[in-house]
């Protein structure tokens, strides 16, 4: 803060009593000052609009095949060109936003719900429950994430829903550990002791006192988690273990198109760009949220 700014703020302070700003309002203000986070939000906003209004925005039916025009490069009528079966790639990318965002958000939400519960129980109860839960999480983390997801899909069978479950299961340990660490630090605070002393029940302490104080790191990790969930989902679909054809899923589009990319490279360019931009958007927003919500965490 420059001297001028300092003077100005002290003047305003004398003139009017500033209303106390809440954590959230403060965080939003900081977030909106972060240029990279804004870029992330704009990117995500565009994809969100695509996802919400896909049937209105998409120029063509994403499943309609025009076999005569197959592998046609981008033109005015089909700006992203046509794929192997003559389907409009632009429309498929637009509809793909629905799937990718849904898989990313749903799998991370599931992981957060179960991970948070496990972390809360583990951190609050301590003792053998803590030991058991955390050792299980250690075992899960001992697998490379993609490998564990593939193993789970191998058990459940390929498909969009099973892939979503696999990605959620794989991400649970991260949140469980995060929440447990938060709980341990919040638990030691005096106000929890005070709540205990006046006879507040355990569940009330957990959900009314401890959880709200653990929420900011979950939000940050969750946003970054959506980015990696989308990447994993695209990877699994690419391998043929996730969304099945003819579903317009970005990873599956790459998987189907990879054999014709030498004659028609446009088939793989656009779905790949879409994945990259969405993931970039969530990464930028996540970094921004981390800086905004907890300046101490800044790298």
């Amino acid at each position, binding site marked *: 803060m420059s001297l001028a700014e300092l003077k100005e703020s002290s003047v305003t302070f004398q003139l009017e009593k500033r209303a106390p700003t809440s954590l959230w309002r403060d965080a939003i203000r900081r977030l909106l000052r972060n240029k990279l986070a804004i870029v992330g939000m704009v990117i995500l906003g565009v994809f969100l609009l695509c996802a919400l209004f896909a049937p209105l925005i998409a120029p063509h039916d994403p499943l309609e095949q025009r076999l005569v025009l197959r592998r046609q490069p981008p033109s005015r009528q089909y700006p992203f060109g046509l794929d192997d079966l003559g389907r409009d790639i632009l429309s498929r990318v637009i509809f793909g936003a629905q799937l990718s965002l849904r898989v990313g958000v749903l799998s991370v939400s599931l992981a957060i719900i179960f991970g948070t519960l496990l972390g809360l129980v583990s951190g609050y109860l301590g003792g053998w429950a803590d030991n058991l839960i955390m050792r299980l999480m250690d075992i899960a983390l*001992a697998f*490379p994430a993609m490998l564990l997801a593939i193993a789970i899909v*191998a058990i459940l069978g390929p498909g969009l829903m099973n892939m979503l479950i696999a990605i959620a299961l794989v991400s649970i340990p991260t949140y469980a550990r995060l929440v447990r660490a938060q709980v341990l630090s919040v638990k030691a605070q005096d106000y929890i002791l005070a709540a205990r002393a006046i006879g507040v029940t355990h569940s009330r302490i957990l959900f009314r006192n401890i959880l709200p104080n653990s929420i900011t790191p979950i939000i940050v990790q969750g946003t970054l988690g959506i980015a990696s969930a989308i990447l994993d989902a695209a990877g699994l679909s690419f391998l043929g273990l996730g969304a099945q054809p003819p579903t317009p899923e970005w990873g599956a589009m790459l998987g189907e198109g990879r054999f014709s990319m030498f004659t028609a490279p446009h088939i793989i360019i656009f779905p790949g760009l879409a994945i990259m931009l969405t993931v970039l958007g969530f990464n930028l927003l996540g970094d921004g949220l981390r800086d905004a919500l907890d300046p101490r965490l800044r790298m």
Partner: protein
Amino acid sequence: MTRYIVQRLILLFFVLLGISVITFTMMHLVPGTPADVMLGEHATDEKVARFRKAYGLDDPILIQYLRYLSKIARGDFGRSVRTNFLVTEELAQRLPATVELTLGAMFVACLIGIPAGILAAYHHNSFFDLITMIGSLIGVSMPVFWLGLVLSYIFGFRLHLLPPSARLTVGVELPTITEVYNLRAIFTGSFGNKIIALSDFLSNFYIFTALVTGNPEAFIDALKHLILPSLALGTIPMANIARMTRSSLLEVLGQDYIRTARAKGLSERVVILVHALKNAFLPIITVIGLLLGGLLSGAILTETIFSWPGMGRLIVDRVLARDYPAVQGGVMVTALLFVCINLLVDVSYAYLDPRIRYE
């Protein structure tokens, strides 16, 4: 320190048990019985009964698990349903391919990531710094399989600079170490067989084998095949390493002893490369260690794109073909590799930084 290693080894034991439970359950949770999966839906009842007896599928589940455990402890994963080869042999062929790819990717990542991070920190807030940081943000968000496709299209198909698939060009000979040094004549007996098995295993590290056997043609060919997959797989760690190098170096550069070094009149290059980098390296090494394990995940996708005959591709192919013995073995060995890398990283970390004390 010793206590910490012992603790980690105990945990490792339980982790391995956990992994074995998962791979074992995999076989029993799949829709349909293992007999259906292995023999197909149209097998006769008699055939199914014989199969169940042969594999001990009528025994209690705990007995079956213990039997499975004792088998895998001896490195016996059974035979592939698909190829009828011993799974252990298939794994021995493919593990070196994955290790070679992973190390290649890490080498590329460090080769580009560390200098980029140093330059970005040195020219802090310059245009180069901005480009590096934006580049690394994009790098982290890049789907590795897409990058692989794009690289193989540009360098393999368009420019014909590098081969886009496989580990060696067809026609390039790479005799095994056993053959070149005629080990079979030197080592005989059961101990000799073990030496030969080891040398056959090592021969699957193509670059190593080409070096040891003095085969420049195969060496250059194998190296060329390794470049594109390594570049694709190495991009994400490269971005992470560049970011970490930059931020770690910037932190160190703000310290008093750096000011002292500068005040002594040392050149900026000596200050950064000798004084600052030494202390900035610890977080960089940590990140490299963490990323090394993560590379195994990426390798699964990279191998598929570059037709790289490694573990990842084996697992994916066999999941789709429902070849469960091979999948079990592949998952088990990859997880084992991952766990061992993480253990080594943690232990070496404790050695490198005397300030770290493990309880």
